[in-house]
């Protein structure tokens, strides 16, 4: 019961702020409405027992990506107003695209067979299992991700130093 109430609170926060992010007239308002969306999604992860995923969501999306988005908005303040303000003139194509996506998602939801597993006995941490999986079954994807990040780091350093060297 308590978990259900919490779920509904987080669901309302997530959906409401996502709607606000989509409909806000100013791009800065959209960016900060996205903050509430990310927190709401993190809360839903926490209710579902994925504590690691919840904290990672906050660390990566709120602490990293959202701040980068805001930084981008701050730096592009000089763009003309017509790009800064979202205008609802293309509502028909948007509605069609949103409707088709919704139909596809609902179809996928109906078609998928959801495996039902017994809930874990106690609220135990998922960290150890994730760490073990990274170092055994998913070692190659994990290493690929690290190489990708290393390449990005080197590339960013190269670009920051200027093109002549």
């Amino acid at each position, binding site marked *: 019961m308590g978990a259900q109430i919490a779920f509904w609170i987080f669901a309302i926060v997530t959906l409401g702020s996502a709607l606000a992010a989509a409909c806000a007239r100013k791009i800065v308002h959209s960016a900060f409405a996205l903050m509430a969306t990310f927190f709401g999604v993190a809360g839903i992860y926490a209710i579902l027992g994925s*504590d*690691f995923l919840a*904290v990672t969501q*906050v660390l990566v999306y*709120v*602490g990293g990506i959202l*701040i980068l988005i805001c*930084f981008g908005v*701050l730096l592009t303040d000089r763009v003309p107003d017509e790009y800064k303000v979202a205008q609802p003139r293309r509502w028909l194509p948007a509605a069609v695209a949103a409707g088709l996506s919704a139909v596809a998602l609902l179809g996928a939801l109906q078609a998928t067979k959801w495996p039902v597993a017994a809930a874990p006995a106690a609220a*135990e941490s998922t960290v150890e299992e994730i760490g073990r999986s990274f170092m055994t079954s998913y070692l190659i994807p994990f290493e690929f991700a690290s190489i990708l990040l290393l390449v990005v780091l080197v590339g960013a350093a190269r670009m920051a130093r200027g093109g002549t060297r």
Partner: protein
Amino acid sequence: MREGLTNLLSGLPQWLQDIALPVLFGLIPAVIIVLGVVTPVGLVGIWGERRIAGKIQDRVGPDRVGISLGPIKSRLFGLGQSVADGVKLLGKEDFIPPGGLGLMFLCAPLVVFAGALALFAALPFGPALWAADPNLGIFYLLSVGALEVLGVLMAGWSSNNKWSLLGAMREVAQVISYEIPMAIAALCPVLLAGSMKMSSIVADQTNGLDLWGLHIAAPEATALGWNLFAAFPFNIIAFVVFYICALAALKRAPFDLPECESELVAGFLTEYSGMRWSLFFLGEYAAMWAMSGIATVLWLGGWTGPLHGFLAGVDVGPIPGGVFFGTLAFVVKTTILFLLMIQIRWTLPRLRLDQVMSLCYKYLIPAAMLCMLASGAAALLASGGAGS
């Protein structure tokens, strides 16, 4: 008490009980622990800062404002300054800059304060004295720092003022950079304890000194089990790196570039006045104390150490001695780190922006990485080699 309340509530419908019990036994005590600590820490912190600044820099006022009623004269340890400050802040105009971003301007201090408050949620004050002790303790504490950055960004943007915006951009660049060495340094105790749970990290620091696979058993009271001395001398370096990063993340001098009175008026705080301005400062002092507390838990044994080790058996009235002296030890250690932050602020001059960045990327990150490698090696040696 718990059973009595449960019986009292048993007359209510089941769904109401399902809501009321977690609120009564979970939420309300957690809120009391958190708010009962944050507000006094903020108030005492501001008073301490004014007084220490007055002493160090010979500022007339904050260290001696008291009462003078005819023959009764007392400096009252400068407490009069806090009263005067409070009256002044209450009397200030509540200004909202024009520009159409009033809501963001009003929310920004709340977001910053919420970020500071969230740090206290997973901070263990003493044995079994915490609002929550999640398995991901330190990971959670490192992640909620993002709220403060966002709050400052909101403040800087919605102030509609170039000084505020410059201050906010400096804050973001600085805090994001210093999060990296801070997280890497915090990994050292996590590696040594093999857990991110704050209570496990503390419990790991009671059983003597581990020196590169050589275990020296020592009682808790000698404090040799503290992570500070593990993998000697690398965790001392990690502790210093973490402390410097905490100063930078809290934008305390010498890293107070986001405020920087001499260049940016007051940075992101320029347009704020009155109680909204003081909410930023309450949040700053609360976050300072919480950061000192995190450093205490990670390297200085949390509530363990001489005080707890010697006096755990001596009960103080109804309070068990372990809880009383453990909490006292934690508060003393944390407050020493907190006072050191204040002293550093009034002693060192401000760094330049490029110096701040090169300190982080060229010195602190490599040092933190070296410490992490050394701690990992020490943990591996202590556990008896690879594969265990």
